[in-house]
């Protein structure tokens, strides 16, 4: 089992922190979808030099596959779910 507690898994916590500070570093809303994922870490480091044409081709294919889902509209069920939770669970302090 690889470190599930690092970030994703949650146990009890006492203090309720606010997620504010974040949009400042990650102005998610105004950015193209892919860029949402890029802000942390060293810019440019995530795209290694294109070794050859084939590698470049693979890179493009990969993006095409990924972008296909990215460009789909967000299914209503998710937004409805979020709305529902907003209403039923108003600030559980």
């Amino acid at each position, binding site marked *: 089992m690889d470190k599930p507690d690092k970030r994703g898994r949650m146990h009890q916590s006492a203090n309720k922190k606010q997620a504010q500070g974040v949009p400042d570093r990650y102005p998610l809303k105004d950015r193209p979808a892919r860029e949402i994922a890029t802000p942390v*870490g060293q810019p440019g480091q995530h795209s290694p030099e294109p070794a050859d044409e084939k590698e470049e081709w693979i890179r493009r294919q990969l993006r095409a596959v990924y972008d296909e*889902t990215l460009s789909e509209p967000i299914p209503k069920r998710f937004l409805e779910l979020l709305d529902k939770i907003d209403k039923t669970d108003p600030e559980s302090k």
Partner: protein
Amino acid sequence: MTDNPDADFRDQIVACLPNLRAFARSIAIDAARADDLVQDTILKALCNSDKFQPGTNVVAWLFTILRNHYYTELRNRRREVEDGDGAHAARLVTLPRQISNLEMGDFQKALAALPDEQREALVLVGGSGFSYEDAAEICGCAVGTIKSRVNRARARLSEVLDPDAVAAAAKAEDADEPCPKAVTVTSIAS
């Protein structure tokens, strides 16, 4: 800005959804299952919004939740079938993936055929655009491990896919000629 941090958090989640779905689909392959994963991720994220560290990458956080959830489910399923009918049942776990692949292009098939850990590393870096460091965070492993997984994934794809053959196949299709489909890919899917 907002006087309701929860609403703000919700907006951030919404903004991440396209990426989250794309990642989910790349690891789960099956689109319906991928969206179930996303839904569970949303619920977990909202229930645990207090665990989110302000100043850290919310996308990475959500990806981590989704990924952990995926592997937990996978483990549980395997355990269930192993408790039941051993090897035969274990095969059933992986079978749906192949079935649902029928409508995929050659590249997607090759991608889907990669080992989970290689595929997710490749997609995190090459699809989502995460740095190696962030991808390592998300996967809970060393940066070097991510790099080597990405490299192995690329090498594997490069090995089984021939761009010229794929392009030629597409061209032949356009020209209504007999199509020399990328033979290479089918060989790894079996």
